[in-house]
């Protein structure tokens, strides 16, 4: 763990939590962007982008509608980046075959699940506060609505900072713990495959002709050296 990691994790965690839960969600809380930002700030840009990209593949088509509780993708990316082994490089797509990322990605998935539960608990608390604020507003105290809004944003900010700090602090220990065990798996191809399936299903059956055109483009991309 570099010296900048805990501070950067708290700062960016707060920002990601605000983007994800309070603001309009302009993509920076998606795993690939969160991983890239966290990696860039902590001097591990490659690890951040690669871990974020693989986790993004897993959750590429997450719906955020109604009562759906999506996983905390940004937290997964931050946690996985902190637990990723050193020496990762883009290497034009060859990193997908790397086996050493598996423990870091598993740590990220676990953190995303825990983070989603933490967020759900906080949202329930805020909803109880909202009932009280609405009652006060109806009684004439209109400022209660603003107070609730700012309070909810502050709570999400603190949640993001604390969750990111814990994920990073425990992630480096987790990485040190599992490194001697040599837990290796082709996690890159597995995540990539899940991403392909999710993209195909998102585009819908009506766009099947685009799959064929895309397939030809993919063959040309691989043969003519794109990404090689």
């Amino acid at each position, binding site marked *: 763990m570099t010296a900048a990691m805990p501070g950067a994790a708290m700062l960016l965690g707060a920002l990601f939590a605000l983007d994800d839960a309070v603001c*309009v969600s*302009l*993509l920076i809380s998606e795993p*690939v*962007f969160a991983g*890239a930002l966290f990696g860039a700030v902590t001097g591990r840009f490659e690890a951040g982008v690669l871990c974020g*990209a693989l986790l993004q593949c*897993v*959750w*590429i*088509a997450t719906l*955020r*509608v*109604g009562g759906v509780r999506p*996983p905390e993708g940004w937290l997964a990316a931050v946690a996985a980046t902190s637990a990723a082994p050193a020496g990762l490089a*883009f*290497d*034009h*797509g060859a990193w*997908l*075959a790397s086996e050493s990322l*598996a423990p870091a990605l*598993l740590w990220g998935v*676990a953190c*995303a*699940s825990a983070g989603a539960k933490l967020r759900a608990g906080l949202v329930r608390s805020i909803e109880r506060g909202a009932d009280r604020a*609405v009652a006060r*507003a*109806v009684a004439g105290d*209109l400022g209660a*609505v*603003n107070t609730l809004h700012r309070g909810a944003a502050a709570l999400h900010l603190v949640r993001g900072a604390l969750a990111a700090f814990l994920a990073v602090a425990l992630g480096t220990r987790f990485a040190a713990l599992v490194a001697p065990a040599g*837990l*290796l*798996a*082709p996690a890159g*191809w*597995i995540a*990539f495959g*899940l*991403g*392909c*399936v*999710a*993209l*195909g*299903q*998102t*585009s819908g059956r*009506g766009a*099947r002709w*685009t*799959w*064929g055109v*895309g*397939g030809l*483009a*993919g063959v040309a991309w*691989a043969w003519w050296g794109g*990404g090689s």
Partner: protein
Amino acid sequence: MHALLPVLRRSADPVAAVQRHTAPFNSNTWTAPAALGAIARLEQEARGADAVRVRDLVSPVLSGMGDAYVFQAVRPACIALALTGVFAGVPRAALGAAFVLYAAAALLQFRRSFVRGAALGADAGRAVAQLRPPARVARCARGAVGLAAGAWIAWGLIRAWEAGPSGAFVLGGTLCVGYTAARHQRAPGWVFAGLVLLAILLRRFSNPVGLP
């Protein structure tokens, strides 16, 4: 209600206006500005009952359109662009382009829908088609997602085969398992974790299929 509060404060009876809007709004953030624009105009014109009707009848319809537009078209298309760049080895340019595209689409949609909603007012219910997100953009985005899906599968299978036949076996197996899991609506995070743990176990205790 927080977004409407500046307008509600200026109404003749602010407490009654606030009371009207205590019901859940629960709208997609990309299409909510259209409903908010219409409601704000109606509240300013002291037509509270019409404002409530717009909230209850127009907002859910727009929200459904917004969900399909954002989560099945624009968002996956921008993310697919970013990831394709990462796979191709140009992450900075791809991430930057995807972010700018998405932010521009979002901000334009917010502005457009608020202005149109405010212009329509009580007519928003009869003119929902004018408030819906642009269908042409949605079609293009879904086409781009389909292109990316086909390109990824073809590129990935070739790359995996070049890395080793076992890589292609893992990718092919994941495509089958992922498709089945998605049809049964299994959480992708747990599917991923399960497959990785299975691969770790196979690699440690036996290796019948030559996993890398």
